[in-house]
């Protein structure tokens, strides 16, 4: 293929100074993009013993960045007592009334011990940053 190109390119009267990437009429090759997308660290397996304990490594944490604003500390503190705050960032933008209902479900149905004043702050924080009108991240 390469040999053929050497013949073809001068015949076209073109000067190709491709550094790293080659572009020819019939194909393009050698283009590499950013490594950021889809990169993932490898892990090493833990030491194992011959006893009857069957174990796996700790499950990794992937703590998301919550939107900056009044009530973020309460949201992180109280919500993360039972679950990762990815439960918040995973959601689609939800209407204000839904966030109110979700926080109240955590308190009334699931027994989350959140004082009234903090619950109000958490609800307004979620309504301020995670609705269709205002969600950015």
């Amino acid at each position, binding site marked *: 293929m390469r040999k053929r190109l050497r013949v073809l390119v001068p*015949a076209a009267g073109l000067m190709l100074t491709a550094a790293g990437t080659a572009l020819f009429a019939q194909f393009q090759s050698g283009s590499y993009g950013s490594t950021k997308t889809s990169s993932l660290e490898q892990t090493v397996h833990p030491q194992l013993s011959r006893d009857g304990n069957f174990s796996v490594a700790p499950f990794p944490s992937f703590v998301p960045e919550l939107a900056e604003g009044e009530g973020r500390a309460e949201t992180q503190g109280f919500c993360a007592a039972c679950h990762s705050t990815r439960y918040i960032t995973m959601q689609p933008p939800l209407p204000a009334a839904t966030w109110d209902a979700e926080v109240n479900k955590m308190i009334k149905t699931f027994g989350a011990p959140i004082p009234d004043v903090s619950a109000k702050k958490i609800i307004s924080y979620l309504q301020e940053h995670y609705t269709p009108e205002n969600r950015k991240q």
Partner: protein
Amino acid sequence: MKLLSAAGGLAIGKWPHAGGFAQQLPVDKEVEPFTGPGPNPHWNSVGPYVSEPQKAPLILLTDRPVQLETPRSYFQSAFTPNDAFYVRWHLSDIPNRVDLPEWRLRIEGSVNKPQTLSLSDLVEKFKPVSVTAVNQCSGNSRSRFQPRVAGGQWGNGAMGNAMWTGVLLRELLDAAGVKEGSVQAQFQGLETGPGPKGSGSNVFLKSLELSDSALQEAVVAYLMNGEPLPMLNGFPVRLVVPGYFATYWMKCLTWIRVLSTPDENFWMKTGYRVPDTPRGNTTPEEMKAGGAKTVPISRMPVRSFLISPDGSSKIPAGMNVTLRGIAFSGYGKIVKVEISDDGAKTWRAAQLGEDHGAYSFRTWEARWTPKIPGSYTLEVRATDEKGKVQPDEPVWNPGGYLWNKIEKQEVVVGKVS
């Protein structure tokens, strides 16, 4: 010399420099961090790939408790590899370790002879049985709902198919001697949460009616595709309820409790319930007005998926392409899979793959030769042995359950000459 005439189509002065070539290629964009308020347009959910113990890189929904989705390409075969099988837990304290010499499966409650069984008891004292069955999360495809509902924002990958080997649940119940007048069997695994004792945030409990036909077919499985279960999929044993949604497939099953009165715990009385209407449908308006009568979710409606081609690259016009995918139904065998490329005006039958049993994924394939360049919408629909066909209408309920609308895939066919 034909190649040169192509080159001649470019203005010489506009040949890009080497550094600029990447701009000329269709570069994959990073998927957005969330979708909505419209439906998630992607086949899978939008989280990053993460590496969890005993698992291939899977798509992260949440890390505590762990919820991971299986990428689309794993569904090209009928059996989902254990390390790629999706993961869904409810409560944060899930086992990292099981001490097998200590661990026992307990059968208690309304029984004459309570049982305490080690893993070797299960393996050696009872007849092993195998069943191939699809495990699908009740909320699979929840991110398609309009309006969107809160909950795990799964794409289509909260499902998997495996051959499960273990002991028939009814044999274990027989060994324990269910007392007359008992109504349900309740299942509890090793997951717990920090919530108040007995509440839904403290313990995850599910129950089946003793008279339920699904209970008759249920298996307490210690092998998944012939291997021990990954911890995240329920090591050392999990309940397998062929045809039923995964909510009943208790992981790390440790207590089977026979009940003389119906289970009133949160996960039966409030959670995992669907409107008692055709397809479990209701509307946000009806919910505001008090909502429909609900029943516990049970069997999985018929579904089918196109796995390949996935729309990520072009198909050359005139080339023969094999469309491939899977289909299944919780109501029994898949009898027909059809595809359409003309907006559902005409359908043609796909070839069904090997039959691994009524509750398994059934692979299918169909030849497709698009002659004219352009955009095509490929649609796939399945029919099960009860005659149920996938509809093109969406479903809506507040839990985000029972999605089984016809799947569609845009594909682009490009010029060859």
